[in-house]
């Protein structure tokens, strides 16, 4: 600006205390919206808690889905033939005939007739130990393992069995599979519902925090308006702060949730719940790589939603300040 100086620099009070001078301020310009007046730590904590809950929900849903899928495929890999109890000699003959039919059926990999001891172990949870099963009408069980490389025609096997051995029945575990499927779907639907609620709570928290921040900084907003700042510029100043808050809170919540899942996954190594047949603790609660990737995406989403929500709220609030 080339103007003739009116020499206004004459001795005004120049008694500024040293701490009031900001070092190297012209190199790194101060933030237009002061950090201290943006509801900082409390909002970071709120966002962190929301992200933690959302991550736990997401991880649990992923773990339930994966575990249910594993159980379903385990159940679907095997079918059983049941021969009703009757005359022992006749039952033995029926077992033999059923075994032969099963072995001849394409797609059946392995046929195993459960011995009395094995059947007894299956019944132990209900009847206890030390019982003589010879007096009880216990059906005989033939376990058929399906060959994964071929498709077995189970409907035809069922027809053949019931035609030739009226006391035989084929159980392909469809009802179990259906129950597992609906259980997993129910958990997922509940999880999605929880995620939506957490998202709404997060958005509302950010909306209130942004409104409070704009109200606190109303003077700054007015000055920015008067020096010709567009609403977009002002919104960007607030958005930058809330993006930081969202990222910090999101990372904190996501990392805590991941730590919880990793801690649960490491329980078997510490000697807890290592028996796969007896998963007494939540060792099955491992979201897998996909789950952790989902948590990472969730953290990014939380940061983005926080920034976007603050931007939209600032825009709306600015309409009332001109």
């Amino acid at each position, binding site marked *: *600006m080339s103007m*003739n100086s*009116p020499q*206004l620099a004459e001795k005004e*009070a*120049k008694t500024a205390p040293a701490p009031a001078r*900001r070092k190297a301020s012209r190199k790194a310009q*101060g933030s237009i919206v*002061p950090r201290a007046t943006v509801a900082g730590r409390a909002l970071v904590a709120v966002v962190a808690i929301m992200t933690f809950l959302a991550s736990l929900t997401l991880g649990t849903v992923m773990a339930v889905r994966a575990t249910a899928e594993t159980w379903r495929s385990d159940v679907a890999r095997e079918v059983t033939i049941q021969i009703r109890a009757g005359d022992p000699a006749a039952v033995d003959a029926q077992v033999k005939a059923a075994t032969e039919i099963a072995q001849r059926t394409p797609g059946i990999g392995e046929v195993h007739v459960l011995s009395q001891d094995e059947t007894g172990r299956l019944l132990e949870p209900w009847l206890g130990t030390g019982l003589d099963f010879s007096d009880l009408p216990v059906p005989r069980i033939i376990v058929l393992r399906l060959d994964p490389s071929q498709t077995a025609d189970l409907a035809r096997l069922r027809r053949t069995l019931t035609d030739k051995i009226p006391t035989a029945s084929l159980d392909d575990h469809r009802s179990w599979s259906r129950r597992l499927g609906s259980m997993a779907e129910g958990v997922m639907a509940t999880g999605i519902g929880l995620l939506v609620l957490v998202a709404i709570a997060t958005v509302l928290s950010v909306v209130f925090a942004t409104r409070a921040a704009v109200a606190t900084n109303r003077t700054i907003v007015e000055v920015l308006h008067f020096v010709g700042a*567009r609403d977009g510029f002002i919104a960007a100043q607030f958005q930058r702060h809330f993006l930081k808050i969202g990222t910090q809170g999101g990372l904190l919540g996501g990392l805590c949730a991941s730590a919880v899942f990793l801690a649960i996954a490491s329980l078997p190594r510490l000697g807890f719940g290592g028996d796969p047949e007896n998963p007494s603790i939540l060792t099955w609660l491992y979201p897998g790589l996909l789950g952790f990737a989902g948590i990472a995406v969730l953290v990014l989403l939380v940061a983005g939603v926080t920034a976007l929500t603050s931007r939209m709220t600032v825009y709306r609030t600015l309409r009332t300040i001109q």
Partner: protein
Amino acid sequence: MVGGRKTSDSLKVGALVRFENVGLRYGMGPEVLKDVTFGIEPNSFQFLTGPSGAGKTTLMRLLFLSLKPTRGLITLFGRDVSSLDPDEVAVLRRRIGIVFQDFRLLDHLTTYENVALPLRVLGKEETSYRAEVTELMHWVGLGDRMNVLPPVLSGGEKQRAAIARALIGRPEFLLADEPTGNVDPTLARRLLRLFVELNKSGTSVLLATHDIALMDQFDARRLVIADGRLYVYE
């Protein structure tokens, strides 16, 4: 007072500002401005004066687009202000420099950052305007106060920082609301000289004041508000 001719016929084509029968009321209250008609020409200097509560601040707010009139027509730089969207208002404000009576400096920014604010909001790189801001700050006598935060500046220094901020964007029209209200008579005279210098360099100046002694020091047009009506003395 020079001139003393009372007139309401001061509208000319090409004026920076034109008010035609402007009226304003707050809510359902009485009109605080009634049938205000005047114009402000390029390169002109005028005082706006009147008793407290007469409507000076309201008129200033209309001039820097902080209010819209209840009735009448206001054109600023040839644009009807009633049809402006927020972005257009921002663009027009960049052509106006405003000095507030209470300075409105941002306390968390240094004096340098406050002065540079209008350029920063344009998205300019700091390196592109550093020399210009530094030169202007030396010009208004704040060369050694650039890295100081406003709370420790004296009243006169704050006033000059506010003026520098209003000038850094090279406005075509400068509005100053009681710029000498918080300073001693000596500094008031210096500030008046500063505004006169600005006017000579091509900026139209509207200086709102109730300081008769100050107005008597410079022969300029006077806009007088009384009871919501404006009287122009050329």
